[in-house]
Each structure stands twice: as structure tokens, then as C-alpha cells.
């Protein structure tokens, strides 16, 4: 076995070790441990991508403790697993760097280190969710992810964030319970927990027509649990409070990364456990498709009615997650590629919007109401411009990354009968609604100053790190938007490898 094949395992263990080691340090020093973890993990993720694309079959399976299945636990890495691990690492790095000043402002000094400890823990959980080959291990790390994300939210200690944490926790726990009961039903029917064994047993059972109803129920519960946790309509009600009240770095991580971790796991389960054929045969995809489309529209409608900029961005997440589920509901390879691209696009754009919005609200002493932030684009030009870029990306203007998944969804929707029209109409309505609230806000922040609210000017020199990070995020957004084809080919190749990994 090549040494590189140990990297996914080392990344998970290193994250857990860093979480413990960070307890011994003060806040600012704990931050450097997180940076060390993220940089070293990113290097390992890149190594795994390069290794898989140049050597061997394009994937490998790592047996924990070298015990064979079904006794041993496994980790597997193809193209998509290390890619999403890398994406999560980049987004977490940029979010905590860009939002570092706000972290120190929003959270008590004695609790700074806990923020970084929880980031390390969330990183461990996300990486494990990306790489794991065992469905029960996935459940354990789902719960670790829930604990870490709830703690990130609680650390702000304001009344609003505590209430948001409670609401988030209740929704998350309901989601976890459904996931767990789905997993247990699946185990009781198949007798396996590892993906490849589950896949082969499910195939046999489905072909023979035995246990069709219990299997459909267990898969439905599993998907429903993960959908609740990732915020699919109508389970998106925890989103505005959660994303809107956390410190901007935590909002970026929660919306850009953590919800995507659950969706990527669901994607893995659909592809590697259930198989697309059974998924489409079971009829669950119709439900996901309809909820996805409803999410796209109602998420945007809620965003239009949102009372402040952070709530608006949070509700927009519900709409964007609707796109991903719509792609999963279509079930074709082209739609799944579009869904993967949407995960990437949303992960790249949403933290940018949260950070830029925090930059704008800083000019008016942290106020987030639309009237308060009006014209603040003149006081913090970089935040205003990068918010505008993020908003254009969310709307789906060409050049920005947000355009690509919309185009891919549109193209993949053809030949689906009535669903073709539904997708195209939903895309059109959703884009118009996006224009209404994002463009309205962008125009609002660049409007001529009218109100008498006292504003503070924030220049590049005053917020160097923040400015560099948001500019970098915008550059990545445009870069990926302009050169999307290599990434699309990469996703197609990744899905092809997923099929061979069974």
C-alpha cells in the first residue's frame, strides 16, 4: 500500500488531535493550530487527488486496522471525496481568516479557543463524512458535526444566538433520529453497514422484489433525515436564525460547508449504496424533486420578505439548496454533475456574501437592517463591490460561478417530460426572484446617502486581511466561472469512478 493512501485517515485523526491540543492554547494561538490543520489537510487532499488521477484505478479503499470487510471499517477515496474535502478546507480557511476580526469582537476572549476547537471538530466530521465507506460511522460523524456546528453558534452567547442554537439543535436532532432509524432498518434488512456490501445486497433484494416496502421506507427515512439537516424546504425554518445570528465566519462555515457535507454524504449514499436505478425505481426522487423546486421558489420568496441582510442571505441558502435537491431528483448523470457544481458554486459564494455583509454592517456599528445598511457601499467599497459580485453570482450572471450550475440544470432537464417544463419554469421564476432581492440590496447599498445614520469609513488599510480574503474569494468565484469546463469534466470522471467503486 502506498503511503499516500494513509492520508485520508491521517487527516481525520489529525483533526481530532488538533481539537484536543487546541485546549492547551489561548485563542489567538489556537487559531494557528487550525491554520496548520487546514493547510496540512489541504496538501494531503491535493496529494490524494493527484495520486488518484495519475496512478491506479482512480480510487482506493483503505481498511482500518487491515481487517477485511465485513468486520473491518473502511475509508474510500476516488476523485470526488478528496475534492470536496479540499473545497471544505479552502472555504473554512477563508471564512475564519476573513472573519477573524469579527470572531474576536463577537465572542468573549475566554472562549476564543473554543471557536477554533469546534472548527477543528467540524473539519474532522466533514472529512470523515466525505471519505467514510461505512454508514454507521457516517451517523457518528453527522452527530459530531451537529455538536460542533451548534457550539459554533452558541459561542456568541447573545440571546438571539442561543435561541437560534436551540432551534437548530431541535431540527438537527429530528434529522439525526430519522437518519439513525433509516440506517438501522437498512442494517436489519441487509445485515451490512459497509457501502459495497450494502449495495450488492440491496441490488439482490430489489431484483427479487423482497422487502421492497421496508427498503423504500428505510431509504426514505435516511434521505428525509439528511434533507432536514441540510435545510431542504419545508425544513429550512432553522436557517435564517442560525445563519443570521452567528458570527460571520461561523455563518460562512455553516451555510457554505456543513450543509454541503450532509448533501455530499446523501449523494454518496444515493450513488454507492442505493444506486441510481433503485433510487429512481423507488419513486423517492419525485418527492425530492418537488421539494427542491418548492424550496427554490419559497426560499426566494422568504428572502424577499426578510427583515435584514443576513436573514436574506440565509433564506437564499434555502433556495440554493433547493437547486441541489432538484438535481438529485432528476437523477441523471448530467443533473447530478449540475448538483455537484451547485454545491461548489454555493460553497464558494455564500461565505463571500456573509463576510461582505459583515463588512458593510461594520460601517454602521453592526446594524443589519436594510435601512441601516443603505449606502454603506460607499463607506466600505471593497465589501460593497464583493457583495455585488456575490449577488451577481447568486443571480446567475455569466462570468460568475453561479451561472454554470443554472445552465447545467437547464440542459440536463430536457427529455424528462413534464419535469422539463417544471425545471425550466422554476429556474426562470427563481432567477427573477433572485434578481428582485439581490439586485435590490446591491442597489440599496450603493444608493446615494440619505439617512442621518453615522457611518464609519473602512478602507483597505484598516481591514487588510478581510479585504484580501473577500477579493480572493471573488477572484476564485470568477476564475471557476470562466473556466468551468475542467471542473465539469472532473465531476463527470468522479461520478464514473463512483460507479466502479462498488
Amino acid at each position, binding site marked *: 500500500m502506498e503511503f499516500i493512501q494513509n492520508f485520508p485517515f491521517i487527516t481525520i485523526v489529525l483533526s481530532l488531535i488538533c481539537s484536543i491540543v487546541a485546549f492547551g492554547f489561548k485563542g489567538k494561538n489556537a487559531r494557528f493550530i487550525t491554520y496548520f490543520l487546514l493547510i496540512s489537510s489541504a496538501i494531503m487532499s491535493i496529494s490524494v487527488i493527484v495520486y488518484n488521477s495519475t496512478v491506479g484505478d482512480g480510487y482506493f479503499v483503505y481498511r482500518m486496522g487491515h481487517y477485511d470487510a465485513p468486520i473491518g471499517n473502511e475509508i474510500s477515496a476516488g476523485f470526488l471525496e478528496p475534492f470536496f474535502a479540499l473545497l471544505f478546507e479552502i472555504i473554512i480557511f477563508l471564512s475564519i481568516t476573513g472573519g477573524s476580526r469579527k470572531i474576536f469582537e463577537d465572542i468573549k476572549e475566554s472562549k476564543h479557543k473554543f471557536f477554533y476547537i469546534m472548527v477543528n471538530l467540524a473539519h474532522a466530521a466533514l472529512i470523515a463524512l466525505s471519505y467514510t465507506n461505512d454508514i*454507521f460511522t457516517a*451517523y*457518528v460523524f453527522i*452527530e459530531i458535526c*451537529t*455538536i460542533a456546528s*451548534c*457550539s459554533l453558534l*452558541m459561542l456568541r*452567547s447573545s*440571546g*438571539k444566538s*442561543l*435561541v437560534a*442554537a*436551540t432551534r437548530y*439543535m*431541535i431540527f438537527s*436532532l*429530528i434529522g*439525526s*433520529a430519522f437518519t*439513525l*432509524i433509516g440506517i*438501522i432498518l437498512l*442494517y*436489519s434488512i441487509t445485515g451490512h*453497514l459497509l457501502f459495497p456490501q450494502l449495495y450488492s445486497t440491496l441490488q439482490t433484494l430489489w431484483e427479487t422484489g423482497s422487502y421492497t416496502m421496508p427498503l423504500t421506507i428505510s431509504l426514505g427515512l435516511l434521505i428525509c433525515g439528511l434533507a432536514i439537516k441540510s435545510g431542504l424546504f419545508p425544513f429550512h425554518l432553522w436557517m435564517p436564525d442560525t445563519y443570521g445570528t452567528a458570527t460571520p465566519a461561523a455563518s460562512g462555515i455553516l451555510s457554505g460547508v456543513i450543509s454541503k457535507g450532509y448533501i455530499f454524504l446523501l449523494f454518496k449514499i444515493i450513488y454507492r449504496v442505493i444506486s441510481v436505478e433503485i433510487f429512481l425505481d423507488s419513486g423517492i426522487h419525485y418527492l425530492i424533486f418537488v421539494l427542491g423546486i418548492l424550496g427554490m421558489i419559497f426560499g426566494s420568496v422568504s428572502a424577499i420578505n426578510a427583515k435584514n441582510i443576513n436573514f436574506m442571505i440565509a433564506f437564499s441558502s434555502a433556495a440554493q439548496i433547493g437547486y441541489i435537491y432538484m438535481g438529485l431528483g432528476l437523477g441523471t448523470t448530467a443533473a447530478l454533475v449540475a448538483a455537484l457544481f451547485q454545491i461548489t458554486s454555493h460553497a464558494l459564494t455564500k461565505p463571500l456574501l456573509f463576510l461582505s455583509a459583515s463588512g458593510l454592517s461594520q460601517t454602521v456599528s453592526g446594524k443589519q437592517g436594510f435601512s441601516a445598511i443603505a449606502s454603506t457601499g460607499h463607506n466600505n467599497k471593497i465589501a460593497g463591490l464583493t457583495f455585488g459580485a456575490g449577488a451577481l453570482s447568486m443571480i446567475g450572471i455569466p462570468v460568475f460561478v453561479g451561472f454554470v450550475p443554472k445552465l447545467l440544470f437547464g440542459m440536463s432537464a430536457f427529455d424528462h417530460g413534464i419535469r422539463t417544463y417544471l425545471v425550466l419554469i422554476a429556474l426562470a421564476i427563481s432567477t427573477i426572484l433572485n434578481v428582485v432581492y439581490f439586485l435590490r440590496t446591491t442597489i440599496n447599498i450603493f444608493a446615494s446617502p440619505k439617512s442621518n445614520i453615522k457611518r464609519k469609513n473602512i478602507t483597505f488599510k484598516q481591514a487588510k486581511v478581510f479585504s484580501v480574503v473577500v477579493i480572493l474569494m471573488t477572484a476564485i468565484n470568477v476564475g471557476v466561472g470562466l473556466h468551468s469546463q475542467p471542473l465539469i469534466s472532473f465531476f463527470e470522471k468522479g461520478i464514473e469512478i463512483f460507479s466502479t467503486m462498488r
Partner: protein
Amino acid sequence: MNLLINYEEATSMILFAIGFTMLVFSKNILKKIMGLNIMDTGIYLFLASMGYIENKLTPIVPSTGNVNASDYINPIPTGLVLTGIVVSVSVSALMLALTIKLYKKFHTLNLDEIYEKCNKEEDDE
């Protein structure tokens, strides 16, 4: 009749339903945490009953004597239940910590009152 034969599964589903109802509908946050624990217990009972085979031995292999695997119950669900309990305890601990913080801030455990007070604070701002 089937429910009587599968009484363990039936009990676990009843426990799950009770816990779920408490978690979703109870206004008191402590009762919600209790509901969460009852719900998890229901799931663990369901899981443990899956691995239990009547008249078989505990899956601890003696140093001498019988080592035939078919004489023992399935040890995997038991292991999973133990892992699940650890997870459940951690989540409950976090929820209780959150409850303490909420109580210190709002002086009540009723979630409706907490939401009301929180919205009032927001409006005052």
C-alpha cells in the same frame, strides 16, 4: 398478533413515537431533552433486539471452551448501541448546557416565552 410476537420492536416504536412527540410538541426545553433521550432509547432497543437471538450466549469468547460463532448472539448491534449511547449522551450534555445558558438569560424554560422575550429584545434594539 405480529405485534405481540415482535413485542420488542413494537415497544421500541412506541417509545420512539412518545419521544418524538415530546421533542417536537413539548414547550418545556427539559421535557424536549427527555423526549430526545426516550426517542434514542427506543431506537437502541430496536437495534439491540435485532441482534438478540434467543437461547444464545453473550458474545464474549471464553479463553477455553466453546468458540463456535453460531452459539453467540450478533455482537455488532450491541457495539452500535454502545456507540449510539455515547453520541446520545454528548448531544444531551450539549442540550443541557444550552438550557442552562438559556435559563440564565431568559429565566424560563418555556420555549414560547423564550421566543417572545427574544423577539421583544430584538424589537427594542
